[in-house]
């Protein structure tokens, strides 16, 4: 900007262009990791719903009674805790999905998904940084 400070810009991303690009496993109404498209596909009321890794903040697994729970937190405005909220948004006046929580009897699988989401996020951040360094 005018003061010479780096302004974070929002960069557009897209999971799919056509509905035949979903991984075949979305049939099972289960969470599906699509590494190729940097996307997590979540079953919501019988429909596979893609969420690009760039919308995801983190994911964590917990146990309660007979069930394991996976909570996926998404990036949304007003979450800057203790520091400046400099996350860029295309439209900060929109509604945002802030979190989704799923339950399953298969805790190991939910832990594995949480790990995979963490790794996918790390890779995405690394790629962004590499791209930025190339541009500089």
């Amino acid at each position, binding site marked *: 900007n005018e003061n010479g400070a780096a302004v974070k810009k929002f960069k557009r991303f897209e999971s799919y262009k056509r509905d035949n690009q979903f991984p075949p496993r979305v049939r099972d109404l289960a969470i599906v990791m699509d590494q190729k498209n940097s996307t997590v596909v979540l*079953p919501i009321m019988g429909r596979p719903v893609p969420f690009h890794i760039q919308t995801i903040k983190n994911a964590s697994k917990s146990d309660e009674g007979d069930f394991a*729970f996976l909570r996926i937190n998404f990036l949304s405005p007003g979450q800057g805790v203790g520091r400046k909220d400099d996350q860029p948004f295309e439209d900060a006046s929109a509604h945002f*999905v802030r979190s989704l929580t799923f*339950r*399953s009897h298969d805790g190991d699988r939910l832990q594995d998904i949480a790990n995979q989401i963490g790794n996918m996020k790390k890779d995405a951040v690394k790629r962004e940084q590499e791209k930025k360094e190339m541009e500089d």
Partner: protein
Amino acid sequence: MARPNDLTRESFDNIFLDLSSSSGRCRFAENGFGWKPSGGGDTFTLDASNIGGAQWSRAAKGYEVKVVLRGQVASLGGIVMLDGFVLEDFERLGKVFKNWYSTNLEHKEHALRGWNWGKGEFGKSELAFNVQNRPAFEIPYSEISNTNLAGKNEVAVEFSLPPNGDDTGTNGALGGARGKGKKAGAGKDQLVEMRFYIPGVTTKKEAMEGEDA
């Protein structure tokens, strides 16, 4: 008795009714449609007079026909979902709905961008989350058990679920179909809660107070 022929009936196999665990055969006729689980059991039927609309979209098993209900079928929760059609079925089904139920089978394309921002809009029987004017997903009101204001600008929506995973919470006679209040229990991973960030309310109030000052 005259036997039904091809002109009075359209039949489709491997169709899932309301996220049912097993598939069945779906038959359409002038007076309505029926779904019979392939493993045997009771047949679900819906009278043509209860069909208020129909949408065609990509779903989990294949393509879905979502029938919007009208009239005295409130116990079904406003919609009936039929998943598992193939792309080529669209034309045949379009004729079924147009000729027999005087309804357009509306092609509803869903948002595939993978964005988590958009606009929540309240329809007749569902809450739709629209991304660039296309629904990313819909939540039938019948599946919501509770909502609350979880924080500043944050709304939590909780879903109805059977108390334990082994309880299908369904009418086994309908091939494990998940009617009103049971849909989130289908599948391996069951949606428990969804939180939305809804901006504006507080900001607007603050802005107005700012103007007054």
